[in-house]
């Protein structure tokens, strides 16, 4: 799909355009980099606000575990997801979210998780950290941190999906999500160790807020933080990071790990938010996030995006990119929910055809992102 006459370009090399344009000319590119840092901050600020609302709902629920309050906590969880989903193009380049040493991504959004690692499951009533009263007499934040990803990548103890499992329970239903009763959290109710279950839910939620706050702080304007260093980078380096995040999410992560695996295995366990059946919303949020970055916008805020740089050197490519970003969103929206049912059946079933079409749309979009990088004089190493 490479254009005629384009050689592989070395990152940061000056590219002489036919019209003598430099695609990442400082005066045009710097504002785009600055706008990116600002939209990342807007996005994480939103994610923190929604996580705090979840925290409030969880606190209300654990203080008095009723069905109504469980429903409210679930609603708050669902409401907290789109902001985080949109932030995922900020991963994959070693920024604050997934910094080699300090990045909390694995504590925030790791999946798939082995639910029996956390709590009882069908056929294993004594499973999980919550019921391991001897091994883990005292539940606290440090313990959960240390148990996350211990001995295996699906041993997930913390984050959105751990909270999701506690709020919904296992999804054994073909028509809807999991339906754990609120009485699992009531002393003498439907499950042993209710007090520990309440404690665990609260600990996991508090830690989620804390971890999101730590990432947001690194992007806050005016601080001596990652954002300050990011906007001072060479524009080539900054744009390379921006595109690496977008391309990695679009390709390997979203179309690969999050959709193709589930499509191929036809296995509920392979869908991203399997307990709440909100996977389609997750996929959509990811695709919106990629579009956000390209256009330089978040929510109601809009500014200089990559689109303006691309339009300057290749208006047709810019149009193609925008069309494909929208086509992916439409294709995801066309999948009949819930996702765990759409992936079942024969390959010619409407659900599977729609999932496949969305995967293809995302792949095409990823290829165009590579072309966008090339047009901007950047070699994108997408793995």
């Amino acid at each position, binding site marked *: 799909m490479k254009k005629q006459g384009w050689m592989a370009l070395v990152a940061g090399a000056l590219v002489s355009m036919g019209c003598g344009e430099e695609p990442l000319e400082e005066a045009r590119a710097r504002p785009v980099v600055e706008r990116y840092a600002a939209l990342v901050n807007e996005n994480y600020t939103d994610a923190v606000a929604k996580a705090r609302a979840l925290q409030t709902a969880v606190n209300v629920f654990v203080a008095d575990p009723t069905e109504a309050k469980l429903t409210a906590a679930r609603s708050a969880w669902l409401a907290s997801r789109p902001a985080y989903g949109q932030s995922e193009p900020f991963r994959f380049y070693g920024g604050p979210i997934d910094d080699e040493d300090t990045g909390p991504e694995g504590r925030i959004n790791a999946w798939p998780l082995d639910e029996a690692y956390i709590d009882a499951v069908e*056929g294993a009533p004594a499973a999980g950290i919550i019921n391991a009263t001897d091994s883990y007499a005292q539940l606290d934040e440090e313990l959960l941190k240390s148990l996350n990803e211990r001995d*295996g990548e699906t041993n997930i103890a913390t984050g959105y999906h751990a909270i999701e499992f506690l709020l919904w329970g296992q999804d054994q239903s073909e028509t809807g999500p999991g339906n754990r009763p609120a009485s699992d959290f009531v002393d003498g109710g439907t499950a042993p160790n209710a007090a520990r279950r309440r404690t665990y839910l609260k600990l996991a939620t508090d830690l989620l807020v804390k971890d999101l706050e730590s990432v947001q702080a690194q992007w806050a304007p005016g601080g001596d933080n990652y954002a300050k260093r990011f906007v001072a980078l060479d524009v080539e380096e900054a744009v390379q990071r921006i595109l690496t995040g977008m391309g990695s999410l679009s390709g390997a992560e979203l179309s690969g790990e999050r959709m193709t695996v589930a499509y191929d295995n036809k296995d509920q*366990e392979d869908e991203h938010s399997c307990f709440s059946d909100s996977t389609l919303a997750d996929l959509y949020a990811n695709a919106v996030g990629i579009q956000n970055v390209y256009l330089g916008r978040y929510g109601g805020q809009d500014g200089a995006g990559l689109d303006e740089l691309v339009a300057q050197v290749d208006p047709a490519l810019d149009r193609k990119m925008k069309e494909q970003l929208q086509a992916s969103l439409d294709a995801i929206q066309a999948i009949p929910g819930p996702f765990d049912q759409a992936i079942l059946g024969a390959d010619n079933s409407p659900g599977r055809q729609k999932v496949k079409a969305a995967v293809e749309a995302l792949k095409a979009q990823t290829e165009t992102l590579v072309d966008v990088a090339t047009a901007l004089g950047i070699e994108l190493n997408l793995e």
Partner: protein
Amino acid sequence: MRRTISLLLLLACACGEEEPEPGEELSGGSTTVHDTTRNAFTLAARNLQGERRDAFFVGNALFNRNWVTAPSSTEGLDGLGPIFNAPSCAGCHFKDGRGKPPTEPDEKPLSLLFRLSIPGQDAHGGPVGDATYGGQLQPQAILGVPAEGQVALTHTPREGRYADGTAYTLEEPHYTLVDLAFGPAHPELMMSPRVAPAMVGLGLLEAIPDSALEALADPDDKNGDGISGRINHVWDVEHGEARVGRFGWKANQPSLRQQNAGAFRGDIGITSELFPEEECTPAQQVCREAPSGGAPELDAHKLEQLTFYTRMLAVPARRDVDAPEVLRGRRLFRELDCAACHVPRFETGTVPDAPELSKQVIFPYTDLLLHDMGPELADDRPDYEATGREWRTPPLWGIGLVETVNRHTRFLHDGRARSLEEAILWHGGEAERSRERFRNLSATDRAALLRFLESL
């Protein structure tokens, strides 16, 4: 006279080092990826495209997935154990990387397993498992089944000195079986510790033609360099014949498919068409009576997906290839004769179903052959044609990223070396001469050699 020589040496060192071979930084040829993060070992071959790339992601999910006790709602993924080492592949190969021995007092050896056997050979020339505990110790079990036992680990220090007087202390491990659930094992039981190796480049190693290994083998040391190098011929279950062994610390597996199926059965307790029987010995009645997750528990399609994944994990590119210190280390690596066994360069053959792996120039730094490594490293447990003192040369590609990926620097077959430097110092037997040359290097040269290894 001596003064003149050292002056000449000085002059020699002042010249530029030999340039690296073009493309030498691409350890895995066109499959090579460029990543130096924690995910460096987790990526698909760079030249893997389209639907074949999709298949990699599917295999990856299977590699990470925890198997659960049968029966369960996830029918395709139940049948864990009854006895096992870990519930998932990733449990030992975290981030597709390298395991380590326990480093804390109460830590169980998770990514370090122990092969067991008694004197003699089975019908195919392979090791004979213990009548009670079988061919491997499984220290974990599902609810209601006793784990076979545990291993107690102790150390004794081994002091040494470089020629320049610098002292070092190695840590020699000792392993003892404890808490055995089914009574004593055979009095002549042999134990071999094996740490989980990194997963990168395995498909490329499989694509090296047998003829290339046969050309390197020198079982009777005809060329008189003190290094023999032997092929291990091992039983190929699928083909019902002996074939060239390539995988495992003693090259006791002929193919990735068999290696994977063997690990599924031995390490996770998951049966497959290749190994349809559970690990439970006749002496372990309660193990034999535990519910099964199906016959076999791993369907052929999943074994295929997983095997495809293990073939397509990419090798990360080298770093700092042109750095003067790295080039100096590169030269020393050859001068010390490390490259006699850690053979730098191969060309893969044509793999009918894997164009990505075919005709690639690769730099694995192994000959895949068995070498006598001396009594210090010996496990004293034969494995097919490998003696109790022989080990297969492990590949070195990616070795400089182990610390980034796995947050440790434990090397050798049981992870006894706490650094690359210690790993070199443990080399004995056929590698003794190279080790002695290393001990006689100046601190600067030792650092350069290590810097070269870290660039791999």
